[in-house]
């Protein structure tokens, strides 16, 4: 039987605020235990939550970005359960009336093997504001668990999708797109290692062609895209094998073990899902007016979809290039700055996505701190365009610029300064392309004299011999001769 996997995601994005969602305690990462745990965070009796304005604005931003309904009135609810990292005995969340309603995220699912890339729309069910819990630390004191409540009360936006994804590749493409989007609109720092972006993935399988959803298992707390792929693929195989062996799937929460590559059901907590939600009497309904939305809208950056369309139209870029350049704002800004400084758009796109991205990945440097600034790259591309540099020379110059430029020095230089800098490199390294036809002719004459056999072969009809002669001429010029001119002159001489 052919099976189909059905996947839905719940993503906890930590909002980029200074303080907690319901108190003025800092949420800076990495502080000493409990030094950012105020009386609200540790739930002393008599304290009251007061909602953070910035957290609400983040939620509105997200709603606008995915074209969602933003609730004019939403309600905070208590989700009741007992755990030591939750001192109140309930988490303040939203249940029946979330702040963000239905919306959609459009993304490119990349080509895998024989399957071509395609566009996919994932529907968003809802997004709601809630507080994070604290952390349990094990092993500090024998036989005890330590509780750090610094994280308790950190603002989260939980983003829930419809079960719209049909493969691990689609689920990861969605998660990556969402990851790009929340950083693009500036509501989340996207740091997965620090837990700022955590995904729970619901997986079920059903016979292909049937409508009824299978029983799902939820893979908790995936904090890397690589693990997400592995976990979904393992879980899917496991469910199919279980069903084919005549077994049934029990609804469960599972954890992924990166060491074994397997998913395993957590010990089911007794009645764990009976959260007895009810409206939190400590908080009044959150009211968002049209004016509130307009104020946030006015501060929104151009969204990646719109920028991609603009890049295609304005710079005549392919959909592929425009998509790649709009995966982050820093990358898009770098591209625009390079073109504004006079570089050809297509050439800039190629170099940014090719040599520069490779270099940034290799060194682990962020594009906003790139050794080669947009101005420096633009000056390099100018020298490539005006024929001073050939492609090979440009590659050498790029390496040279990378090693000799420090990020702090180039942020202040002008395009004029950048051009004289590249000219210095070209002079120092002897990279200037030879375009003087007299000099090239002299080189070719030497090559022809030294390779009489090849000339004979060419005259006998062997086309390949021509390319060999071009190669010899380029070699003789130490790669500096303008290849187009070498071709022309050689053709004339041999005709």
């Amino acid at each position, binding site marked *: 039987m052919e099976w189909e996997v059905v996947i839905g995601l719940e993503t906890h994005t930590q909002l980029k*605020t*200074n*303080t907690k969602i319901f*108190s*003025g*305690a*800092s949420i800076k990462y990495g502080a*000493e*235990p*409990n*030094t*950012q*745990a*105020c*009386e*609200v965070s*540790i739930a*002393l009796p008599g304290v009251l939550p*007061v*909602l*953070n*304005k*910035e*957290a*609400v604005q983040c939620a509105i931003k997200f709603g606008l970005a995915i074209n969602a309904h933003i609730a004019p*009135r939403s*309600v905070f609810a208590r989700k*009741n359960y*007992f*755990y*030591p990292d939750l001192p109140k*005995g309930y988490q303040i969340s939203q249940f029946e*009336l979330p702040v963000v309603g239905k919306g959609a995220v459009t993304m490119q699912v990349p080509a895998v093997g024989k399957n071509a890339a395609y566009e996919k729309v994932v529907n968003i069910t809802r997004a709601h504001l809630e507080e994070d819990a604290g952390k*349990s*630390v*094990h092993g*500090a*004191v024998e*036989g*005890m*668990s*330590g*509780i*750090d*409540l610094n994280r308790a009360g950190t603002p989260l936006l939980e983003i829930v999708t419809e079960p719209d994804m049909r493969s691990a590749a689609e689920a990861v493409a969605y998660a990556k797109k969402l990851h790009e989007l929340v950083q693009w609109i500036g509501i989340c720092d996207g740091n997965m290692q620090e837990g700022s972006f955590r995904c729970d993935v619901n997986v079920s399988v059903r016979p292909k062609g049937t409508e009824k959803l299978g029983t799902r298992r939820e893979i908790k707390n995936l904090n890397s895209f690589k693990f997400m792929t592995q976990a979904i693929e393992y879980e899917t195989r496991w469910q199919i094998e279980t069903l084919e062996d005549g077994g049934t799937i029990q609804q469960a929460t599972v954890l992924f073990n990166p060491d074994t590559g397997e998913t395993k059901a*957590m010990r089911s907590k007794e*009645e764990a899902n*009976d959260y*007895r939600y009810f*409206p939190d*009497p400590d*908080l*009044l*309904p*959150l*009211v968002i007016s049209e004016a509130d939305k307009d104020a946030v809208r006015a501060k929104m950056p151009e969204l990646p979809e719109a920028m991609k369309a603009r890049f295609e139209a304005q710079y005549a870029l392919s959909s592929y290039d425009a998509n790649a350049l709009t995966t982050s704002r820093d990358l898009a800004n770098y591209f625009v700055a390079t073109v504004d400084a006079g570089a050809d758009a297509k050439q800039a796109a190629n170099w940014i996505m090719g040599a520069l991205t490779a270099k940034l990945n290799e060194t682990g440097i962020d594009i906003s701190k790139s050794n080669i600034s947009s101005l420096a790259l633009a000056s390099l591309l100018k020298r490539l365009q005006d024929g001073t540099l050939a492609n090979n020379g440009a590659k050498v110059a790029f390496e040279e610029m990378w090693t000799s430029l420090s990020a702090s020095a180039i942020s202040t230089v002008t395009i004029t300064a950048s051009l004289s800098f590249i000219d210095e490199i070209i002079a120092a390294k002897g990279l200037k392309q030879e375009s003087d036809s007299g000099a090239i002719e002299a080189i070719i004459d030497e090559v022809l004299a030294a390779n009489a056999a090849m000339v004979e072969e060419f005259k006998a009809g062997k086309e390949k011999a021509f390319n060999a002669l071009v190669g010899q001429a380029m070699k003789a010029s130490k790669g500096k001769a303008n290849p187009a001119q070498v071709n022309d002159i050689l053709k004339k001489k041999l005709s």
Partner: protein
Amino acid sequence: MALSIEDIKKVAHLARIEVSESDAAATLTKLTGILSLIEQMQAVDTTGIEPMSHSQDLSQRLRDDVVTKANLREEFQKNAPALGNGSAEPAVAGGLYLVPKVIE
């Protein structure tokens, strides 16, 4: 809606409230009384009336995103509960609040 003793025990367990057998019967009577009050309210025609989530018809005040809380860990941890092993000392170590071991 008729409640049973089992319902009382389940709700008590979920809320981590210890209810003895004899108290359970009395609690059943009280809770049944509350539910009958709710039944009376449900009989009222509320067609066209927007449900409220709070007894006051106001909206939530928002706070500016500015750090206002100082680090009062020392003060708070003086009042941390004791370990329960006879010692009256607050159960804290290395800045952490200590609790009986949580098994994952």
